[in-house]
């Protein structure tokens, strides 16, 4: 929407389309009170788009509508859109909708002289007036060209029709079949010049994608890109590429990784809420296990978690995780965890993205896990994958959802990241790599943090082990050749213990020797003391004797 900062700024009046995402692309909807041309090849969804426009107009905006069909009889239409959950009969009975099937069969009609299309005008006018409709669909008016000979009259009348629609003040959709050189076979874009939307249905590498593009929109800004859209059980949804603005709110709240020992590798003690975490690694490096640990941790804290598994079925995942002591079943039962499994090739990237979007809207998770994101690269071209991942991450950021992606990469000697990593590595906030570390006839798993935005983190390569009790990070063991893992770690530990014992023994021996020496010393001291005492005694005897003699001598005098 236009910024309201300038209060007198003109805001182009628009009619919301009711098509998921199209309002964002058109910056609010179709031009109000004007005709919009929707054109495209066969089977690209023109009729559905216009039908959805009408029905949503009735159900969501309380704007009655008229559907004038030149191709399908009313009953067929009712049946066709019923599968998408639209009940035309009910709306018709409520006087919210009029469906008029205009049948022009060339073989039955002859022309003699001048005529006009007043019949059509009157029918349409009557339909509009009878229910006070503000939305009108003409699908596909070009059929008239096949039914009527006099093209000059027809063109003049169409021009009059569109003009008349404008004066009626109805927001109209006119559909047209895609032509060779022009947007439509009969050049309808000449008459409908306010808003032209082209639908397209392409198959690239056996995957079909539908796209929508706004060719022109007078008097309004609009997205100019091709936007993928899809038709599913709820009708059409258009996927705006991205909001393109990076102004989402950030949180400095920390969520625990769930893996014992991994938290301490981050200065903050975990991931930031709303950040994206990429766990990449080669096959069999326990990416899924890490993902499940994270999921279980979040579920434990009553955070709603959505798990997209592109490789395993929910049952398989639950069983496998049970073997390492993670009980995911109870989280599924108490409603904190949802696992969605599908083959990535089931549908195009856009559908995956939309499924995701829908689930986010319905389930409102705070944590999402996509396992693995690299499988999606099989579905589209490099460019498409990249743009889809950008959109995905953008969507998650806006919703402040903590997301953990796993990514399988090929085992290469050089550390060059492959496509999936390359696409997301610049977008993710935290990147953890799990590696195989091969050596002395065994394979061990090592884990390290490649990056962690806004948080200090450990630079160590930590070995981690998986046992029936779960996974755990081991403390770093440094040997002469660097970090030791597996058997090397163990033998190193044994060696260390032996040398420790030896050292202890040596110390004990030294202690004993000193004790002995002390005892000798003490004995010597005792002996000397005795000697001293006996000498002192002798001296005192001598002194006493002398005194006695002196006394005796003095008496004699």
């Amino acid at each position, binding site marked *: 929407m236009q910024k309201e900062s300038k209060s007198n700024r003109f805001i182009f009046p628009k009619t919301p389309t009711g098509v998921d995402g199209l309002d964002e692309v058109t910056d609010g909807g179709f031009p109000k009170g004007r005709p919009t041309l929707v054109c495209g090849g066969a089977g690209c969804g023109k009729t559905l788009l216009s039908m959805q426009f009408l029905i949503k107009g009735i159900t969501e905006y309380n704007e009655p509508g008229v559907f004038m069909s030149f191709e399908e009889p009313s009953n067929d239409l009712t049946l066709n859109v019923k599968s998408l959950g639209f009940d035309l009969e009910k709306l018709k009975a409520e006087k919210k909708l009029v469906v*008029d099937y*205009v*049948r*022009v069969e060339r073989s*039955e*009609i*002859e*022309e*003699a*002289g*001048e*005529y*006009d*299309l*007043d*019949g*059509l005008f*009157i*029918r349409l006018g*009557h339909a509009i007036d009878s229910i006070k409709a503000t939305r009108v669909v003409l699908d596909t008016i070009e059929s*008239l060209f096949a*039914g*009527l000979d006099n093209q000059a009259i027809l063109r003049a009348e169409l021009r009059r029709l569109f003009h008349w629609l404008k004066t009626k003040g109805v927001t109209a959709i006119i559909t047209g079949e895609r032509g060779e050189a022009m947007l439509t076979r009969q050049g309808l874009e000449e008459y409908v010049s306010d808003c032209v939307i082209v639908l397209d249905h392409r198959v690239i590498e056996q995957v079909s994608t539908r796209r929508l593009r706004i060719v022109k929109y007078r008097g309004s800004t609009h997205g100019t890109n091709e936007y993928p859209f899809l038709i599913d059980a709820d009708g059409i949804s258009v996927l705006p590429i991205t909001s393109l603005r990076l102004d989402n709110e950030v949180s400095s709240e920390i969520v625990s990784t769930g893996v014992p020992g991994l938290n301490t590798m981050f200065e903050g003690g975990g991931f930031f809420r709303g950040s994206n975490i990429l766990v990449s690694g080669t096959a069999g490096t326990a990416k899924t296990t890490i993902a499940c640990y994270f999921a279980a941790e979040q579920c434990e804290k009553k955070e709603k978690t959505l798990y997209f598994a592109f490789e395993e079925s929910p049952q398989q995942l639950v069983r496998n995780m049970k073997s390492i002591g993670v009980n995911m079943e109870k989280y599924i039962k108490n409603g904190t965890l949802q696992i969605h499994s599908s083959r990535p090739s089931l549908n195009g990237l856009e559908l995956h993205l939309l499924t995701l979007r829908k689930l986010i809207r319905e389930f409102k998770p705070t944590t999402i896990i996509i396992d693995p994101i690299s499988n999606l690269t099989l579905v589209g071209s490099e460019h498409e994958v990249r743009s889809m991942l950008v959109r995905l991450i953008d969507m998650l950021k806006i919703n402040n959802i903590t997301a953990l992606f796993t990514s399988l990469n090929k085992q290469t000697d050089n550390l060059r990241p492959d496509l999936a990593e390359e696409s997301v590595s610049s977008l993710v906030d935290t990147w953890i790599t799990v590696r195989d570390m091969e050596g002395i006839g065994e394979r061990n798993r090592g884990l390290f943090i490649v990056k962690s935005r806004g948080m200090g983190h450990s630079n160590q390569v930590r070995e981690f082990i998986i046992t029936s009790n779960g996974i755990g990070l081991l403390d770093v063991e440094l040997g002469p050749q660097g970090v030791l893992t597996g058997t090397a770690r163990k033998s190193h530990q044994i060696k260390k213990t032996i040398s420790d014992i030896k050292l202890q023994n040596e110390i004990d021996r030294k202690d004993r020797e000193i004790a002995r020496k002390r005892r000798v010393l003490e004995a010597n001291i005792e002996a000397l003391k005795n000697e001293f005492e006996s000498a002192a005694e002798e001296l005192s005897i001598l002194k006493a004797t002398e005194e006695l003699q002196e006394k005796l001598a003095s008496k004699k005098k």
Partner: protein
Amino acid sequence: MDDPSDDTSTTQHKFMLFVSGMSVKSGHAIENLRKICDKYLTDNYELEIIDISRDTEQAVIHQIVAIPTLIRTDPAPQRIILGDLSDREKVLRILNISE
């Protein structure tokens, strides 16, 4: 094909002419049709003029798009002619009426 000679004389012709209000073309169509009928189908026809601007339902029922539209319901086969019927020769040919 019907035999033209006995067609004009014996069979009753039924026409429905759809017009809208007082438009010029509608007026021409009525005039032209009357002339044709009076000349070739004297008293052997039935003409119903329907003004769809008043009777809109009829326009839907009979699948009227263009105005004026002439529908000949009898004799079979049904014929639909668009236009003000100014091209008399063509009208006669379509309606299979000989001059």
